[in-house]
Every structure is written in structure tokens, then in C-alpha cells.
């Protein structure tokens, strides 16, 4: 049976959700919050959806999407283009390679994985910036940045879990 137009639109929208959610958090990540001392330790928000979908739906959150979201991040944040593409790509790869271990293991294992990925992401960011500018960048904010990213996982990751559930939901009339 050929799917109807509505079903095809529905399917396309569902496939776009992981990419869109990461894009939304990349945008939210650069919104000025006007909070003192927050700037340097602001979390790598887009990393959370990238990590979650790399583990659960690597078919919908691909390498190229992670690359593109990094590019958007760099363009908006004023960083040299390519820095966060590289960071997100490598984090994606790390999460992707561990997905068999992480997927379906429950929330706390996933959260633990987030800590490792956030630490990797922040460390890579520091390394890439240091190489790019050929001098050592300040290391003080790194730990807080990674911890804040991890601390936001229950919120953002929880949202991803809900979205994931919605994606799997099918109206009864459409079931074969």
C-alpha cells in the first residue's frame, strides 16, 4: 500500500525532528542571557541533542547534520568556522561508537555518558582553539562548562526522550 500524502509529510517531519531539535538548541545556546560570569561557562547546549540522537537514531542524526549544526554554532557565536563542526563531529563519533552500550540502558547510564561526552567536547574545543590561535587558552572555565552541560541533561535530554516517544507514536487508524 502506498502511503498517503499526509503520511509522507508526517514521516518527513518525524525524520527531521532530531536535526531540528539540535538546531533549536544551537540557537538557544547563543541567546544572550545577560548574566554575570555566565558567558565563559555557558553550556554546549547543542551537544545534548546531538549525543542523544547519535545514540538512539543515528540514521536521522548523521555525521553531516552534526557538522552542519557545528557550522551554524560557529557562524552565530563568532567562532572561527569549522571549530565546532570538528568538535561536534568527534563527539558524535564517540557517542555513535558507544551506542550499543548506551542505548536502552536507562537514564542514569545515559547521563553518565553525557558527562564523558561533555568533557570530551569541552576538552576538544579547548584544544582546537589553542591550536587555531597557536597559544594556550584559559583552562579555568572548562570544568564548569562540562558540568553545566551535564547538569542540563535531565532537562534537555528529558525533553529529547519525550520527543522520541512522540516520534514513535502512531495514530491507531494508520497502523497496518
Amino acid at each position, binding site marked *: 500500500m502506498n502511503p498517503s500524502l499526509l503520511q509522507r509529510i508526517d514521516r518527513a517531519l518525524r525524520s527531521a525532528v532530531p536535526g531540528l531539535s539540535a538546531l533549536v538548541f544551537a540557537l538557544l545556546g*547563543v541567546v544572550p542571557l545577560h548574566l554575570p560570569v555566565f558567558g565563559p561557562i555557558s553550556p554546549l547546549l547543542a551537544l545534548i541533542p546531538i549525543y542523544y540522537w547519535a545514540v538512539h537514531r543515528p540514521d536521522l542524526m548523521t555525521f553531516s547534520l552534526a557538522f552542519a549544526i557545528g557550522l551554524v554554532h560557529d557562524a552565530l557565536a563568532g567562532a572561527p568556522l569549522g571549530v565546532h563542526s570538528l568538535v561536534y563531529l568527534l563527539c558524535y563519533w564517540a557517542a555513535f561508537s558507544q551506542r550499543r552500550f548506551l542505548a536502552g540502558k536507562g537514564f542514569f547510564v545515559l547521563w553518565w555518558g553525557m558527562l564523558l561526552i561533555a568533557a570530551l567536547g569541552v576538552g576538544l574545543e579547548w584544544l582546537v582553539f589553542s591550536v587555531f590561535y597557536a597559544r594556550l587558552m584559559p583552562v579555568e572555565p572548562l570544568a564548569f562548562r562540562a558540568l553545566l552541560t551535564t547538569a542540563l541533561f535531565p532537562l534537555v535530554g528529558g525533553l529529547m526522550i519525550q520527543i522520541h516517544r512522540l516520534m514513535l507514536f502512531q495514530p491507531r487508524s494508520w497502523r497496518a
Partner: protein
Amino acid sequence: MKARTRSTVRLIALKSWAHRFSFALLLLAAVGLMMLTKIDTLVVEDVRARVTDAVSPVLNAVSRPAATVATVVEDVRQLSDLRAENARLEAENRALLQYQEIAFRLEAENLSLRALTNYRPDYRHRFLTARVIADGAGAFVRSLALNVGTADGIESGQAVLGGNGLAGRVVQAGERTARVLLITDFNARIPVLLERSRDRAMLVGDNTDRPHLTYLGEEASIAVGDRVVTSGHGGMFPPGLPVGTVVGLDNGLIRIQPFEQLDRLEFVRVVGFEPVDETASMQRGLGGLSFEAMGAVGVEQAPDPAVIEALTRFISFGGTPAAAP
């Protein structure tokens, strides 16, 4: 059946290979992009401007509630020490009123002396107020995106002021957005001078909250608390914009505390700065103040309210501030 399984296995192997290949390719692309950023900033800045322009409506919408929340948080925090704050402000206000009197007097004297000596100011300013719609969000980039662009007359190189002092400079202008490099960014270099001793120096950002001074002459006289202002050398910035105060030595570097709280900027003013057309400068050079008006301000006279108003405008760099779109 067996042939089919084999072809499926081959297909999976091929897919996995393509997957790895795309990963390697994208890694190379990222490194290539970074190298391109390092070599040819024009193309890269164009890409950046286009992306920022494209998402600016979203950022514009999202940054408003964020700013409101931040304001509410700040308001609640301030409620607790309102009384003490009020007493402090009243005392400060009394002191400032005296300074204002002195400033008016000096300004009037200055203006009448300028009229006497036929002094011609060599620049004038235009202002455009803009909203901050995105910030660098990270330890390694100190920059902002504004909701104004070339369509509003913004150009690369223009100075950006907060309410208290210099915040940075426009490094790239898209059609509807502009990017500002803050004075604390690793790449920021601003020619400055010490207001008291008139010694020149270069203000260098290093991604900390306090930039430092370099190229300060050996015989320079410097003390903690000295005010640092833009020198206008190099023709990039108007001279005399307030930057910060000297706070002390740190590992052999002279640190400056910027006047502006750079992590809380919500609105900024972009200063358009143009050399005055020599032939036309006599009447409009001083931000709309005519020579007749200046002549009317005698040093010993009590200042007329209208003149005070005009002078206040002139003191805050003249020109009429244009509203943000």
C-alpha cells in the same frame, strides 16, 4: 537465497565504508574551513553574515524574553538593598551635580574659545542604537551579534559603546545583522591613551575580563585608577571614548577594568564616525550647535536651560541618536 544474503552483506559493508568515508571527509572539511578562516576571512565572513542574517528574526524574537527574564532576576536581586542604594545614589547625585556645574562652565568656556580661535573639529559622530541578539557563548570567543546591518548604515570598523564606555568594534556587517568583537576578545587591539599623562598604548584583549596594555613607552607615568580612553590613532575610532581604568599589575601585565559590563550588554550604540567635509563644517560640525549659540554662552553668565540642553547633547558626543529598527 544464499546469493541474496551475500549481496545484503556486501551492501551493509559498502554502507559502513561510505559512513566512515563521509566521517573522514567531513573531518577534513572542518579542518579545511578553519584553515580558510585563517587565510581568507572575506569569504568566511560573508558566509557568517548570511547565516546570521538568515536566523536573525528567530534570534531577535528569542532574545527578548531572555532579556526580560534577566531584567526580572536583576530587579528582584536589587529589591533587597534598595534603601542603601538610594542613600548612596543621593550622595553621588549631589557630588555629580557639582561636577555637572563645572563641566557646563568648562564646556562653555571651551566652546567660546573655539569660536574665538576658529577651531575646526575634524570629525563628527552619528549614533545608532542596536539590540544584542546573540553572544559568543563560550570561553574562547568574546563577540556579539546586533540586530542592525548595512541596511541601517552599519559598516565594519565602527566603534560600539555600551552605556558607560567602549564595548568593542564592528568586525563584520551583514544586511540586517552585525558582528561586534568585544575589547576583551583575544583578537582585539585598540589604540588608547592614558587620560592623565597622555601616554599612548595599545589595549590588547586576551579572553579574560580584563584586557591589558602593551607598547607603553618606558617613561610613561601610570597609576592605579588612571582612566584609559581611545586615542583615535589609526583613524579607526573617534578619540576620547572612555574605555576603562587601570586596576594594577598582574604577572607583569597592566590590567584595565572596562567601564562597560561586557557580559550584561542588552543595548549598544554604534558610533558612525566620519571626517567632516572641510567646506561645510563651519555650521554643522558641532552636532547642530551654531556659532551664534556658542557665542551666547559667556563664561561668567548663568547658563540658559536651552543651551544646557544643547551642551549636554554635545557632551555626549553630539548628533541625534537614531532609534533601532
